[in-house]
């Protein structure tokens, strides 16, 4: 089969066989119960079979290549061959967001397995591949296989050891050279395991966390778990569920207290944020969690909830983030790699700001924002968005550099004098009108008058002038309206002024323009 280490065969027995081209063993046997099969055709990864009683198209595997990324090194697995690329060597000058890049690729070997997962060890020296029943460890530099074994699930521990799920009741800790270090028997059915700061063992509707060295019980979260993401050395984690995800804070190991185990375990993790949106791909950069929504929006978790930072043109997943390039690397479902620029300084600032908002430390927050002077104006605007989402409007106003954003904040916060200043700078009639409406609502008539005059909002001016008994203003409106051919306004204004001659004149004049 095209690109895949299989060939497919069908025959009059109505069965479809997939045979490995390496070992010549039958790896898959399928019966679709449509009697005799007569024809077969392949296109990319789609297989079409014509049976007596109908035809069928099957998609085999996913088109997204498997990848793992660590310390600037990317390993791609295409059809059981490994390729490495050094993303640090990518020329990032004049790189546009979402522009596809083609890093140099070097083939470093292949595997006998049909890979379903691929992951670097935390120190980047090794990587594993697994097909769901077996695993193999390779050296990241040379691609050489060092060891292999059976597993139902496998993850790395931060100490660069392997946690191997063996059957559904046992987890082993194995060194990369193959020695078994420790093992853990579990009295529940293990669905999956996750790595990270603590070993997460997922049961049907809960996850139990264990320490890697001692395999001590560390805590438990009760929910259906689909994904767990740990940042490096932070007491935070993200737990994905079918309905959304939680941001949890890990409050240290639980003291052994056998009486109240249930209650204690729930106290170990504190829910910081709950998001009702699933993520398809997630990544921690420092203390900030970035994720892709199903709608292909790249978001980050700020203290006020998710904030969208960019909309991706294709369905993608996050490869990683390189701090000194200030770039996110992403891959779409066709395997094309592209980048998205996001300043690392900004991430650091956001992390600090998040922490300060969490502590409700306003002084610290101001300091954190002010300590980063060399951000570009776009970044300031983004910070301002986060701040305003956390109802720190005054600070958000100070942080923002863009007049448009400043104006919106000022208006929403009824900081009318500030808004007026911005209007004077920008002199946009639409803005003047909005300012006028807000000023009117707030009862600031002088600002309202100035804004309507500037924005030439004659209807509002007429209303304002007539209610305030400002004859001069009404006369101004009347003349202006006549000039702009707003005859009804003009008539109304003259009428209020009891200027009958002009009222009459307005009516006569109306003919020329209707």
């Amino acid at each position, binding site marked *: 089969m095209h690109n895949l280490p299989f060939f497919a065969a069908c025959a009059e027995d109505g069965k479809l066989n997939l045979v490995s081209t390496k070992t010549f063993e039958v790896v898959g046997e399928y019966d679709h119960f449509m009697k005799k099969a007569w024809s077969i055709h392949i296109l990319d990864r789609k297989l079409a079979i014509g049976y007596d009683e109908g035809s069928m198209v099957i998609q085999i595997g996913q088109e997204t290549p498997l990848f793992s990324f660590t310390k600037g090194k990317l390993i791609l697995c295409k059809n059981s061959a490994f390729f490495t690329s050094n993303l640090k060597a990518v020329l990032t000058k004049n790189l546009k967001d979402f522009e596809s890049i083609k890093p140099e690729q070097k083939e470093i070997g292949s595997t006998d397995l049909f890979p379903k997962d691929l992951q670097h060890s935390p120190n980047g020296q090794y990587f594993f591949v697994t097909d769901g029943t077996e695993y193999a460890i390779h050296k990241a530099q040379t691609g050489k296989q060092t060891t292999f074994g059976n597993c139902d699930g496998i993850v790395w521990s931060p100490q660069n050891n392997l946690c191997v799920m063996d059957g559904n009741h046992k987890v082993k800790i194995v060194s990369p050279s193959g020695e078994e270090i420790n093992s853990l028997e579990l009295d529940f059915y293990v669905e999956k395991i996750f790595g990270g700061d603590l070993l997460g063992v997922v049961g049907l509707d809960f996850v139990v966390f264990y320490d890697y060295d001692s395999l001590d019980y560390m805590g438990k979260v009760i929910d259906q778990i689909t994904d767990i993401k740990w940042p490096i050395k932070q007491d935070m984690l993200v737990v994905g569920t079918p309905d959304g995800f939680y941001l949890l804070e890990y409050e240290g190991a639980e003291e052994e207290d056998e009486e109240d185990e249930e209650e204690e375990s729930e106290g170990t993790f504190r829910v910081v944020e709950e998001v009702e949106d699933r993520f398809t791909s997630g990544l921690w950069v420092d203390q900030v969690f970035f994720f892709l929504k199903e709608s292909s929006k790249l978001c980050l978790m700020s203290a006020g909830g998710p904030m969208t930072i960019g909309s991706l043109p294709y369905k993608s997943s996050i490869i990683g983030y390189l701090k000194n390039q200030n770039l996110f690397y992403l891959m779409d479902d066709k395997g094309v790699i592209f980048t998205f620029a996001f300043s690392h300084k900004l991430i650091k600032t956001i992390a600090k700001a998040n922490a300060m908002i969490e502590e409700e430390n306003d002084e610290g927050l101001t300091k954190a924002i002010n300590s980063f002077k060399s951000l570009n104006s776009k970044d300031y605007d983004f910070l301002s968005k986060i701040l305003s989402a956390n109802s720190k409007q005054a600070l958000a106003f100070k942080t923002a550099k863009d007049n448009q954003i400043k104006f919106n904040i000022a208006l929403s916060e009824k900081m009318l004098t500030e808004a007026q200043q911005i209007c004077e700078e920008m002199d946009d009639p639409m803005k003047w009108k909005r300012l006028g409406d807000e000023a009117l609502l707030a009862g600031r008539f002088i600002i309202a008058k100035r804004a309507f005059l500037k924005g030439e909002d004659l209807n509002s001016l007429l209303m304002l002038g007539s209610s305030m*008994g400002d004859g001069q203003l009404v006369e101004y409106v009347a003349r202006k309206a006549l000039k702009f051919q707003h005859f009804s306004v003009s008539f109304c204004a003259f009428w209020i002024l009891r200027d*009958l001659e002009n009222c*009459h004149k307005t*009516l*006569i004049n109306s003919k020329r323009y209707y």
Partner: protein
Amino acid sequence: MTRFGEAGVFAKTYIPSKIGDTFTDWKKYLDDSNRKILHQRLANPMEHFSQFPELEDLIKCGKVVNTWLAELNIPAYAFSVFQGKPIDSKNNQKQ
């Protein structure tokens, strides 16, 4: 759409001296836009005093009333006095 009709009624109600002007303008407009029949049907009351016996009085009255009103120059807040309510002190200051 023109507003000569409205202008005519307005003039008759408030400034009868303008009735003649309204019709002159209206007729000129109809003439310019080639609407001969309408033009012929429209009679300027000022040229047909006999058909509008009250018109002369109306114009006189209008002049008198308008001069009188202009001389009076009643401020808006006087309305509350007219209604028998005391004058709002705030409004008074503004005036």
